[in-house]
């Protein structure tokens, strides 16, 4: 009986091998990661396709409007002119926008440095860290323009509301970035200092901040670049002044596409300058650390 069964399996095994060889060899295993990647890609694609059916086109012919946009780009970039402001005034309003970005980044960085210390798991207690992180997540979820408009009711439209509102958002962004940099710090350094009797402030100022300085600076400068963009938008959406206000007037008020070109050149020039400086700072930080 037992021998029979053993004999019966023998012809089967060659069939199995044949079956195995006839199927293509699977190189990639279907892991959870690949499954999630596929699901995400598929849902992004489906949402996009569905979106094209759902959009409120308001009777716009895409091809016609697209061609008109290209024609507009040509006029904007080749026939840019000054109409409602001069070159010096242009430089002045651009400086106002940059100043808004400087102020909000600076205020944001100072406040975020202390909150970031509180939000880092390895420097504060878990309860405090989680509390700060969740408050900051909610603050971050409110778009900057809404913060500015909310403060505009108390302070009136203008630079005060813009700076306070933008600072709120900068703080919440930087707290996340800073606390993550602090958390990456080697636990041994803190432990060694703690064992030698260093106080919390000594640990922070002698070990934590110096060793994360390059991250802090590059995050802060990144936020400065973002804040420049936000400051333009606030000029347009919340009358905070600067080049954004001129942008809004040229587009929605005067319908002056040529002046829009001038403003675009100003914005482009400053933004590319900032990017070049940021790249320089980053490479310098990388070589010194």
């Amino acid at each position, binding site marked *: 009986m037992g021998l029979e069964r053993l004999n019966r399996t023998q012809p089967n095994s060659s069939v199995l091998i044949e079956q195995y060889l006839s199927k293509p060899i699977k190189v990639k295993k279907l892991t959870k990661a690949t499954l999630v990647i596929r699901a995400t890609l598929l849902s992004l694609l489906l949402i996009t396709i569905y979106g094209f059916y759902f*959009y409120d086109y308001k009777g716009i012919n895409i091809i016609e409007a697209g061609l008109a946009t290209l024609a507009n780009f040509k006029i904007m970039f080749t026939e840019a002119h000054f109409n409602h402001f001069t070159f010096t005034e242009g430089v002045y309003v651009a400086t106002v926008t940059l100043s808004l970005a400087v102020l909000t980044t600076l205020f944001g960085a100072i406040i975020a440095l202390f909150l970031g210390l509180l939000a880092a798991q390895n420097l504060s207690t878990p309860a405090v860290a989680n509390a700060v992180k969740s408050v900051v997540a909610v603050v971050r979820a409110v778009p900057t323009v809404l913060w500015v408009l909310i403060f505009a009711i108390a302070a009136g439209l203008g630079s005060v509301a813009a700076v306070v509102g933008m600072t709120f958002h900068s703080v919440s962004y930087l707290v996340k970035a800073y606390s993550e940099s602090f958390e990456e710090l080697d636990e041994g350094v803190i432990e060694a200092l703690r064992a030698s009797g260093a106080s919390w402030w000594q640990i922070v100022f002698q070990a934590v901040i110096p060793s994360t300085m390059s991250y802090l600076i590059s995050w802060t400068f990144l936020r400065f670049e973002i804040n420049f963009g936000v400051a333009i938008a606030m000029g347009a959406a919340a009358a905070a002044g600067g080049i954004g206000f001129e942008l809004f007037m040229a587009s929605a008020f005067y319908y002056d596409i040529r002046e829009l070109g001038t403003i675009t050149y100003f914005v482009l020039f400053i933004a590319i300058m900032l990017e070049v400086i940021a790249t320089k700072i980053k490479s310098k930080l990388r070589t010194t650390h």
Partner: protein
Amino acid sequence: MQDKFFLKKRLKSSIILFVVLLVTYGAIIMTEFSLIKGLASIPKAFEWGVTNFFPTTKSLERLPNILNKLFETILVSIGATTVAAIFALAFAIMGSATTRVNSFLSGMARGFATLFRNIDIAVWSMILLFTFGQSALTGFFALFFVSFGFLTRAFIEVIDEASGSSVEALQATGAPYLTTIFQSVIPASLPMMLSWVLFVAETNIRSATLIGILTGTGIGFAFDLYYKSMNYNAASLVVIVIVLTILLIEYISNYVRRVIL
């Protein structure tokens, strides 16, 4: 020697501090910002918020309309991100040092990305307002241009980082260009790329509110309408809906990122 080291260090930090203070002072004068007024406005805004800025039963009647607008905004943001990602992938493959066809095309792809990324989203939406008017397409293209510029730059860095050695290995075996791209470059860099795409989708939902206010579309328009007609209860409902959406999307993309990276 030690003395001088610390003296030099202290001098350097004092100079940096002085320059920062000077720049701050200049910025305060330029923007006519008043610190006292700014500090005073924070408690005032909170006081006003507690007394006025909450949804009432009457404003809840507007919820279906608000949700409809929100839905459109999400669709526009994600659609723009996906389409931008497809274009960015092609441009990044052209632009990356490891996969480029020649240096001229590479330079052009990088230049395009820099141009599109550095023109601010507010500028894009004001430019597009001329031809697309108050339709969803204005927001779509504004988000598309900025996302395209940003993603091209991010993808170039991902490709350079993730696939240098495997591209070399495949090229050594004589694999044709497209095989190298599809068998090595894309699979190796897909998780990182997807992580960037999710990041941009998140950012775009935030920016869509701003674009909506500027161009009169989507959820931003709903907020602007209630805000300007001083219907703050309904405006607060819009804010709550936006916050919940962004937190949810952040949660989902954090989950996906944790699994795939």
